[in-house]
């Protein structure tokens, strides 16, 4: 317990609570349970993508294509629903996850087999995926009246007081706690990012582990693509443009080390909540939404600077020199 109190997660929890307290001081209605549930629901897409991004960053990679992946998958789901309203929702969900996973696998294969730096691969695929939306849609929008009631209703349906979208985010969150802590692949993400050479000697395939991280990230982006389009009931070329930066920001704020191998799921959750609360609070406290971008950017810079400061001098003495030994 004392370990937790001194950890970054404890500090972040304090920061998030302080932020809530600050807003509640002037606008008590903001912290009403109903509103907080709404804020969490708004943050759900960011949280889901940030969880995927976390495992990618843990393996020393970065995935900048998630927002474009989300938008392309969302557009395909929306167009499919508009063209064939009879396709069951389960099939659309499966399609979204599969499509996202394939796009993630393309990233992963380029990183794994050709050893191209992940930043270059995903910068490239980001524009390719985004451009493909224009190609398939011809620049047209898919509007709510073209979508079926069950298509748009699913993420918004309320179950035990929370929308389905929130439940999905919570389920994925719970899954990730188990996934990274209790499965061989989850531990491999840490091992590969922490020390790739040691990982090889431990019998891990570095490239393949990174490949799976990209597949996980892509699959979650695809799923979020459907949820996003269904929730906002509109699909067009530019949805979630620039969202990848917010996703990376959530991870970095949450203490996921960009050099790989360090960070926790709890940290990612707190990072996403921090950004989500901030985003929802800005209009409430009367700040123009145009401040959002600069604040995310500043938060990234401050968070990395802070990460590196706290990482300094963290070395552990594993062989103590015997005191007084001659």
């Amino acid at each position, binding site marked *: 317990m004392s370990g937790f109190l001194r950890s970054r997660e404890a500090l972040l929890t304090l920061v998030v609570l302080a932020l809530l307290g600050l807003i509640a001081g002037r606008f008590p209605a903001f912290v009403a349970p109903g509103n907080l549930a709404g804020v969490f629901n708004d943050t759900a897409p960011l949280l889901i993508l940030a969880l995927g991004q976390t495992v990618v960053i843990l*393996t*020393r*990679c*970065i995935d900048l294509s998630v927002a474009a992946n989300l938008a392309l998958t969302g557009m395909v789901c929306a167009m499919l629903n508009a063209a064939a309203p009879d396709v069951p929702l389960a099939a659309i969900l499966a399609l979204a996850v599969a499509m996202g996973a394939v796009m993630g696998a393309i990233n992963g294969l*380029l*990183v794994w*087999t*050709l*050893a*191209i*730096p*992940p*930043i*270059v*691969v995903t*910068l*490239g*695929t*980001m*524009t*390719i995926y*985004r*451009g*493909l939306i*224009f*190609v398939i849609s011809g*620049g047209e929008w898919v509007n709510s009246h073209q979508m079926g009631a069950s298509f748009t209703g699913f993420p918004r349906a309320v179950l035990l007081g929370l929308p389905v979208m929130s439940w999905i985010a919570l389920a994925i969150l719970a899954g990730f706690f188990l996934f990274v802590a209790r499965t061989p692949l989850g531990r491999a993400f840490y091992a590969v990012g922490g020390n*790739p*050479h040691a990982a*090889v000697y431990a019998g891990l395939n*570095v*490239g393949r582990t*990174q490949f799976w991280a990209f597949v996980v990230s892509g699959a979650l982006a695809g799923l979020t693509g459907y949820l996003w389009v269904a929730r906002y009931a509109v699909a067009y*070329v530019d949805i979630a443009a*620039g969202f990848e*930066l917010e996703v*990376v*920001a959530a991870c*970095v704020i949450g203490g996921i080390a*960009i*050099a790989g191998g360090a960070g926790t799921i709890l940290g990612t959750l707190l990072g996403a909540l921090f950004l989500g609360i901030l985003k929802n609070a800005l209009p409430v406290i009367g700040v*123009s939404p*145009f*401040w*959002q*971008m*600069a*604040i*995310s*950017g*500043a*938060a*990234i*810079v401050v968070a*990395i*600077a802070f990460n*590196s400061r706290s990482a300094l001098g963290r070395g552990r003495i594993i062989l103590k020199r015997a005191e007084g030994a001659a």
Partner: protein
Amino acid sequence: MSETGLRDSSLHRHLPDRLEGRGARLVKSWESLLLAVAIAIFVANSFASPYFLNAWSLSDATFNFTEKAMIAFAMAMLIIAGEIDLSVAGIVALASTAMGAAAQFEVGVPVLILVGLGTGLLCGAFNGILVTGMGLPSIVVTIGTMSLFRGISYIVLGDQAYRGYPAGFSWFGQGYVFWVISFELVLFAILALIYYVVLHRTSFGRTVYAIGNNPTGALFSGIRVARVKFVLFLLTGLMSGVAAICLTSRLGSTRPSIATAWELEVVTMVVLGGINILGGSGTIPGVVIAAFVMGLVTFGLGLLNVPGIVMSIFIGALLIGVIALPRLWTLWRQR
């Protein structure tokens, strides 16, 4: 980035018994291949559209790449030194916004130029301090400052735009020095020459390569690694300021969305020019030819009425393709 050093061993270098002659190396170089590609695209374009082979349309085509190439020269040196700056488009937006704000006070053209260059230098210095002073990874730092710089433009401008630049200011982006030779093209050529000399003919240029190949070794050889990298970030900021002046002058207005996604095109140009994305090798002539290739491709596609967002698919594919193909070739030859 994933410099694990493990997978690279599968792409180990082939060491020949003796070096080939100068001519043979020149013919087999990346730059020659690129030049052949440029010529092929040029020929293809002139067949594809009857409007292509015309002095004025060719002159117009150069505007597609001159501004981005100015940033690409500095970016090339930065990438050779093993760092990267993804905030260049953000710097362009901020510098343009600063100039627009200054223009509202009816200042003269020289002041506007100083404001543009100064903003670029300040942004570059900010990146440089974060990366070299605090030892932070440049990729994430500049992802952060990319939204920070452009975000400040959004705070200042919101959904508004700055107009009302003084009359003489339009010359930088729209003026012609001689016949179809624009001011921007001349500036591009002068800057290309300067960067060529600095990178390939001065000791500073050699230190850039040394740092990119082995930063620790460079430090132990007495090179002030942090200072050189800081200067490179300053240069990249300054060149973004120069590009902002040209672009703002050419458009005659400033919106916060100005130069969106330029960082991608600039990095693509640099990588297409044969600069190793992991640092340590590449040349300025390569970047110059790559600038022409990208300008010709986008202009040719534009003549064929291909929309801009579809062109970005080509750019993205080009970026991955130029890195992937040589590696595929190496893997295939090793089989």
